[in-house]
């Protein structure tokens, strides 16, 4: 029973991390239609920026996080304006943009290694506690992941429902051509969602920096999880992406209760393939 409780907690905390990543990716992909694979290295660069500000510059961690989030948002906007936007203007088919995003992924990943080195980066200045529930445990950082996922999720939901820009984003996600016809500036909105989505990824990056440390390859797993969560959750649905992110994490964790852990990734995708066969439009079907 102790193991089951521990695995459930692990699923919850990992799900919160996956949800943060999925929300950022879903915002960008669901609104602009750009399969932004470079989201992974953008997330990684954001985390490295936070590390550099905290460990090299010596800023307080909270300030490093704030500046890192702003930097990551700007980096995301840069990706859109300098890489994807020119293809949009020239009317390139989506697969060309997809290839461009893969190229950007590789360039950025390699740049991380060149600029920051290939070693693991950690921050020693932030101590955190370990808490026990019976025999199960969790750390303050993991609690922070859940809190961040809740706050960011509620914030984005509120923004999309209540603000003028949020409503415009929903309109654009629903039908980009129609949004343009009724006078919505889709370029400005694209800039906004790239900024928002990238900023959300930096929140996840800051917490992973504390929990596991950073390495130049961390972006691949992040964008992979985010992409799968968005597809399984139902493209265009933020809520679906979050539900799918937790589903992924719980399957990954609880699935190993009675099965050898070497099957961890395999069982997840067996379940997901089965799910997609049964419900190809994802968890949350859009009207």
């Amino acid at each position, binding site marked *: 029973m102790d*193991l089951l409780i521990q695995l459930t907690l*692990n699923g919850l905390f990992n799900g919160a991390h996956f949800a943060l990543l999925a929300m950022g990716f879903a915002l960008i992909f669901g609104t602009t239609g750009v399969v932004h694979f470079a989201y992974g290295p953008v997330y990684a660069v954001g985390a490295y920026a936070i590390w550099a500000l905290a460990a090299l510059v010596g800023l307080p961690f909270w300030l490093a996080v704030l500046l890192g989030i702003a930097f990551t948002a700007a980096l995301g906007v840069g990706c859109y304006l300098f890489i994807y936007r020119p293809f949009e203007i020239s009317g390139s088919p989506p697969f060309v943009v997809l290839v461009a995003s893969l190229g950007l992924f590789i360039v950025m990943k390699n740049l991380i290694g060149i600029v920051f080195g290939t070693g693991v980066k950690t921050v020693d200045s932030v101590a955190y506690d370990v808490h026990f529930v019976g025999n199960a445990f969790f750390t303050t950082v993991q609690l922070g992941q859940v809190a961040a996922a809740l706050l960011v999720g509620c914030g984005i939901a509120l923004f999309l429902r209540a603000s003028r820009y949020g409503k415009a984003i929903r309109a654009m996600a629903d039908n980009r051509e129609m949004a343009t016809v009724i006078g919505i500036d889709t370029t400005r909105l694209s800039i906004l969602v790239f900024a928002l989505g990238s900023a959300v990824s930096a929140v996840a990056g800051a917490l992973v920096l504390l929990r596991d440390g950073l390495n130049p390859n961390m972006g691949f797993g992040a964008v992979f999880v985010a992409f799968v969560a968005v597809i399984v959750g139902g493209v265009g649905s933020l809520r679906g992406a979050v539900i799918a992110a937790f589903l992924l994490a719980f399957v990954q964790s609880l699935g*190993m209760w009675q099965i050898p852990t*070497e099957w961890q*990734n395999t069982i997840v995708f067996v379940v997901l393939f089965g799910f997609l066969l049964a419900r190809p439009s994802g968890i949350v079907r859009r009207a």
Partner: protein
Amino acid sequence: MSKRTLFAALVLSSALTSGAALAADPAVYKIGGIFAMTGASPHYGKVMSAGAQLAVDEINAQGGIDGVKLQLVIEDHKSGSAQAAVAGMNRLIDVEGVKAVLPSFSTVTLATMPIGDQKKVMMINGGGVSAQTVGTSPYMFNIRSMASDLAAGIAHRAAEQGAKKLAQIAIKSEFGDATIAATTKAWEGMGLKMVAAEQFQADAANIDTQVAKLRASQPDAIANWPTTPQAGLAVKRMRELGMKQPVYCMEWTAEDTKVAGKHAEGVEVVTDYFAATDENPWSKRFADAYKAKFGEMPDFYAANYYEGVYVIAELIRRAKAKGGDYYSGERLVQALWENPTFDSVYGKTLTFRKNGVAQKPVAVFRLENGEQTFVKFTSGD
């Protein structure tokens, strides 16, 4: 047919078909290195290439081999990609014309070994520990203790410290599988109980599930088999989870200490023993030169690949002294078996055994204040 007899036959047939014409020296002796320069574990590529390059630089500074310089040509296997390794091996042989290659990682060594065998290129592995690299090709040599030796050493150490139940954690790879199998055999061979063997993917950053299952198995000691940096991550997670059992590793680098932080304290590492001492002037010279050039002390991987280059250089010298068309993988291997003993940076000499594995001192180290402190020599016998 023994490995030596097989090789003698190979050399004889080669001599008969090629004649005894004298060959000119090459413009440069190229030595191939297939290292993890990128991917999940670039630390290994960094130290291995640094050790090998330092040896090349030293030999060249002394005039090379009769005036012909050495050149290290590096291919990146991206931390274990067999595909990248095979492409790199083919390029080293077919484009660069190397006659000797230094592979690293078990998966990579196993993937490239058939190519070396087919194209008659000597291979000296200083990193991978898979027993499958032993005795399958007359061109394959190891200057690193094999997993079976290290696992047995660790099993003995854990038992000697009173453990009755052992749990293991490893990456899902050829190395991980081989190490788990070797440890299980050694541990259960002593009549003791193996209570868990958990594995995860090489690029996994999150191993909470595996560690939770380790903890639930209530072991007396833990054998921690992941490579850098997951070895450090696993220790960090175990300690955070309140697991106070002794942890034994066969791999531990400065990267792992950085990841594990304060939790690294007390971890024991059973591995090839390299220490720069005044009693061994070459080791001191090597360590000083390495630190001056790269800013850190060399680990045993750097020492293995440094030594690997010196072994190859010595073989070229010996083969050349015999005359004829000396610069070939076959002649290098022939020169090795004529005298399998070489000066060693580890101290005194190293001798290749009949299975192609050089006997190395294996020792227990304990992490104290972030440094590996020598505890004792050990043996899996």
